[in-house]
């Protein structure tokens, strides 16, 4: 019987055990499946559990490792994939009723790469319908209802990578793949107290993934630690001509926490006096104090004065309106869980062609300004979310939900990682986000790993009942 202690171990440690043949991939997979059976009915993290496939892949990994074949650190490690990644022969719903029974005949590039790395697919993870592409106002805007937060099942996980956040936090999977267009990895990572990495646009191929916004979508890992995220990133990153936005960039250096003291670090000071949860502000301030006490120099930074949010909004709206054209034409948009989602197509008609071109030109300015910013700083720190997880049944219209830096980071395609940095007064996780320049994931990762080396927030576990 594999204990909860093992299931909460980071990928790096699991990998060491698996490769040393001290932990059986088959037993590990069975333990994850058992945990999913017991806990998922309360969390709603999975859309589909791929039990037979997982056991088959686990047996294959075990056999290969026994024969001395080593596919790398993910060999024999189970994972879950957000249900917007195509999986051959397994339904891919995009979290949306109109696609409830849709099955592709191919795997997405990320699924293929993880299979080649020897990872074991446990299932497809819940998500907000269409990754929030046509708007939503409640956490239950999903084919599978609201994913619930393992730290408190009356709270939401955030979206749109809802199941990815819940599954990692509850140790149903050692790692998960999520996606972010604007906040969909950083927010659930923050709310669920896990590490989540949004890679640079173009770092990870989106071939076979649902397109929400071609110029904003990113796929990335969510896991127990920054180091785990890096290991997964290395397996899924790389140029892919099948994704026209894929960048022919080298992998980049590995992160090194020992270099953190040489990083030029900026921090955004947010005013929690007007909005947000002050206890989240205190958690972030303590994180900065911890970093300074450990010898890092962190100075206050300000973002360039540019209309990041407006530009991102126009580009996103324009791209979304065409991305889901088939739903508009067929009338299937009216079958979504969000009753007025189809109205987004009507509203988007207010955008002129010249607006889209102007937004694209302004994006050039924004990218240049952020490139200059990251010539001065290696890493920018900020609280990815200014509050802890919302009540699961709350209408967002009643909640302040700021995202001060998300527009700039996503518009400019910049990488960021969220790691837990403490708890709010409601005993729910708070997150600190580290953003770095394009294709400089290693800098944000070095800082995040350094922080996780001096703190233990990432080792905290949610209060879930024991799984026998």
């Amino acid at each position, binding site marked *: 019987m594999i204990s909860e202690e093992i299931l909460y171990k980071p990928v790096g440690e699991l990998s060491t055990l698996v490769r040393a043949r001290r932990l059986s991939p088959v037993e590990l997979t069975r333990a994850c499946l058992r945990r999913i059976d017991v806990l998922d009915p309360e969390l709603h993290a999975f859309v589909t559990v791929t039990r037979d496939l997982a056991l088959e892949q686990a047996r294959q990994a075990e056999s290969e490792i026994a024969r001395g074949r080593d596919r790398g650190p993910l060999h024999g490690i189970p994972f879950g994939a957000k249900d917007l990644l195509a999986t051959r022969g397994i339904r891919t719903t995009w979290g949306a009723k109109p696609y409830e029974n849709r099955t592709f005949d191919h795997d997405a590039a990320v699924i293929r790469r993880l299979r080649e790395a020897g990872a074991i697919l446990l299932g497809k993870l819940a998500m907000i319908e269409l990754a929030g592409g046509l708007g939503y*106002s409640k956490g239950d805007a999903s084919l599978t209802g609201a994913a619930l937060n393992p730290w408190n099942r009356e709270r939401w996980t955030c979206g749109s990578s809802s199941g990815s956040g819940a599954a990692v936090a509850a140790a149903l999977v050692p790692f998960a793949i999520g996606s972010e267009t604007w906040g969909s990895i950083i927010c659930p990572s923050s709310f669920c107290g896990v590490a989540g990495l949004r890679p640079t646009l173009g770092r990870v191929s989106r071939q076979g993934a649902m397109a929400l916004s071609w110029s904003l979508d990113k796929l990335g890992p969510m896991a127990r630690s920054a180091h785990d995220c890096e290991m997964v990133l290395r397996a899924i990153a790389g140029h892919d001509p099948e994704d026209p936005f894929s960048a022919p960039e080298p992998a980049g250096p590995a992160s090194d926490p020992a270099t953190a003291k040489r990083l030029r670090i900026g921090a955004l000071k947010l005013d929690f006096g007007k909005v947000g949860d002050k206890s989240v502000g205190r958690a972030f301030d303590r994180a900065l104090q911890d970093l300074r006490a450990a010898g890092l120099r962190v100075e206050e930074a300000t973002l360039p004065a540019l209309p990041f949010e407006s530009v991102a909004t126009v580009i996103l709206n324009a791209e979304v309106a065409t991305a889901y054209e088939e739903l508009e034409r067929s009338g299937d948009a009216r079958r979504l869980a969000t009753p007025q989602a189809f109205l987004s197509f009507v509203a988007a008609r207010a955008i002129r062609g010249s607006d889209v071109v102007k937004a694209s030109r302004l994006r050039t300015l924004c990218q240049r300004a952020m490139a200059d910013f990251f010539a001065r700083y290696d890493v920018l720190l900020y609280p990815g979310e200014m509050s802890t997880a919302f009540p699961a049944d709350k*209408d967002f219209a009643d909640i302040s939900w700021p995202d*001060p830096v998300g527009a700039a980071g996503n518009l400019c395609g910049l990488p960021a990682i969220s790691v837990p940095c403490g708890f709010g007064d409601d005993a729910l996780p708070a997150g600190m986000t580290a953003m770095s320049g394009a294709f400089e994931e290693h800098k944000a990762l070095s800082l995040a790993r350094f922080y996780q080396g001096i703190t233990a927030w990432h080792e905290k576990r949610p209060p879930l009942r024991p799984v026998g």
Partner: protein
Amino acid sequence: MKITRRSMARLIVGAPVAAAAAAVLPAGALLGARPAAAGEEPATGEATPEGAATHEPEETPLGRFLAKQEEGLTSEERKAVRRQVAGLEESLREIREHSLGNEVPPSDIVRALRSERPRR
């Protein structure tokens, strides 16, 4: 108190914020990967985008355009569309007013695509 994503930008202490006008809806709300705050109404005293709330919808070019687009919608749906457009218009106005010189190209890069011919 409802605070929007855009007005939140002003809460970054010391950050110069380009947006002068207050937004009435979360800018990412319309269709964003983040949720729509569908029920938000303009706060008292805040600027109201043209064609949104202070004008009769059909009085403006946008209003006339929308009236045509909204054919077949219920009055509740029409209201929802106009709330969404109000948020979007704020973003559109900001980018339309932003002055750009001829030297700034779009961020999209179009690469000529080579023909792939079968080997002879």
